[in-house]
């Protein structure tokens, strides 16, 4: 028995190749691409620039819009002024007198009053007589000596006047 035991030993397989050195390591890391980050940064940059662009464009557009509305405002104010002037001129005593005379009316000669309480007429009204020629048919106070508007031709739209003063062909 002892002999058996003495001659029993593990048979080591003979290695022909070099033995790889193995070690226990963690699972390999997935390599992170830089693209998304770069894309994000680029996106932010582009978005910012775009926003600035949009703002600037919007501001400029608004500025043009303001100018257009100012023109409109001026055009309407001019219209309103012209109408106001015309209204004032037409309601002046001289204009009214002229138009009345043109219609053949004469200045009142007798004035009478009606008492609304009892219907009584105070005064002695008579039908108006046509004015004697040369006497009351002349208008003594002429209308205002203003140049009358020349009939307009050409533009129906007012031209650019940015409202800040002078303009010309430059």
């Amino acid at each position, binding site marked *: 028995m002892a002999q058996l035991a003495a001659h029993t030993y593990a048979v080591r397989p003979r290695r022909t190749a070099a033995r790889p050195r193995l070690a226990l390591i963690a699972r390999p890391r997935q390599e992170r691409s830089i693209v998304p980050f770069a894309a994000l940064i680029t996106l932010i940059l582009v978005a910012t620039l775009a926003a600035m662009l949009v703002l600037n464009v919007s501001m400029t557009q608004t500025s043009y819009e303001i100018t257009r509305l100012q023109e409109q405002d001026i055009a309407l104010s001019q219209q309103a002024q012209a109408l106001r002037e015309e209204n004032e001129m037409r309601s*002046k*005593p001289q204009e009214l007198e002229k138009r009345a005379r043109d219609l053949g009316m004469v200045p009142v000669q007798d004035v009478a009053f009606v008492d609304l309480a009892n219907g009584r007429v105070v005064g002695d009204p008579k039908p108006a007589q046509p004015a004697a020629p040369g006497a009351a048919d002349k208008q003594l106070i002429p209308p205002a000596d203003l140049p009358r508007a020349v009939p307009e031709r050409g533009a129906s739209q007012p031209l650019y006047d940015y409202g800040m*003063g002078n303009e010309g*062909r430059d």
Partner: protein
Amino acid sequence: MRSGATAVRTLPAEPHRRHRLVLIGIAIFALLLGGRLIWVQGLNSAELSEKAVQARTVERTIPALRGDILDTNGNVMATSVLRYDIWVDQRQVGDYRANDDTATETGVKAAAKQLAPLTGMSVADLEKKLTGKAGFQYIIRNVEPSERDAIMALDIPGIGADRATERIYPGGMVGANVVGFVSSDGQALGGTELSWDEHLRGQDGHTTYERGAGGQVIPSGSNTTKDAVDGQDVVLTIDEDIQHRAQEIITAKVKEWNGTGGSIVVIDTATGDIVALAEDPTFDPNQPAKAKPDLLGNQSISNVFEPGSTGKLFTMAAALEEGVTTPSEKHTVPYSKEFKGHQVRDSHQHPTQYLTTAGVLKESSNVGTVEIANRMSPKTRYEYLRKFGLGQPTGLPLPGESGGILHKPENWTGRTEFTTSFGQGYAVNAVQVTSAVGTFANDGVHVRPRIVKGVKDAKGVLRPTQKQQADRVVSPETAATMRQLMDNDVPDNPDSNAHVPGFAVGGKTGTAQVPDGTYTASFIGMAPMDDPRYVIGVFVYGLPAYFSGNTVAAPAFADIMSYTLHARRVTPSGKDGVELDNTWK
């Protein structure tokens, strides 16, 4: 390894050298550019951007809009409107339609033809204005916006338009003496325009902004604005319609009787408001250059004259107040009488008359008046005249008022002591004397006249002027008696020149001789006599012969009083006028 060929060609210079030269060239160029960039952006940036800002910065005055002048009902008597001045750069006109193949004419000729119907100027005139080398020449000024639009639509090179403001007076001559006028560049020169200029002109503003190529405001540029403060509107007490009618009447009267001029003053007795202050001759403030220079003022306050018989009213009032006479006191009045060596005569020969005090006033007897006046000292009479507001300016806020002439009683030498009792020997202006007579309508209190009702603030609310000064001159009883005397003066029947149908009228005529040989005819009266609302004075100056106040002025008075009462909706009360005893034998 060299080949066998013996001809050794010289190799061209090695490209490396050329390359290097080019590279050096580029490098130098880049260096220069880089240097310039650093210079512009880094070192000199401040100065250059400063220049750029200056180039696009625009400074403009924002003109303040001048306030309007309105009548008591808000009708516009003076206003500022937008107009344009059309100018030309003569050097550019030649290009008009130069590239247009269909044009039969080009340049100045064509432009003049197009502009003529729009401007109302002749083609020849326009050609002259458009020809030359001037860079700036006015063609026509103060055109309306619609005209300017039409002119600019022609697209004539070199034609431009400047904004301008023009002051217009839609009523023309009506109220011109009160409203006043401005110069062609907007400076106030007379009337209310001048006296109230401080309120009317406002304050100019200022704006600075950066301008784009098309003229727009650059929104992100610097932008400062100080707003203009527009002028305030001034509201007068004048009623435009009554003013117009008064002007018509006085113009007709002056013409009819060949006077040199005339005035009508209409005052609301309760408030002292001057409802109308008309005169002839006058001017159109839209064209002040066309008027005679001495007509550009207000003759009704600057001209003084002796009131004549209307002055008897003040003597009578003083006598009644002092208690030295009563309306029914009996007098024996010859045509002529001597006082202290001076002969006083009545205006017309008459046998001795037996008149009451009321009759003395009605007949306008100088002799009778002096007899009554002599019961008071000159000093007393002088004080009453002063209390009535004579001899001092009324204080109207209009330029050029004369306070009249009233010498101190110590200087009433010789004839003057007596003539002052019948309205000669002192001088008044039309407003002064009319306002003084208004005292009797106001229960004996003299209210100073006013012509400006108030000023509108920024919100359009009227801020009235201060209340007028009021002084008691005579007692209410004396004032009532004076009204009776004046009522008695004017018979309320159609035969009387001063008669107003439906109303009791009171007043006094006046005819004064002026040292230069002409006469002033006047009539001052009030209505309705039971409660007078208006006092009106009519004055015609420079009459070539003796035409009495009754003949000349009284009918005009009836006309304007009638119009005023109707316009102001005063209804007849139905009460008859007062008649007193004028004679006693």
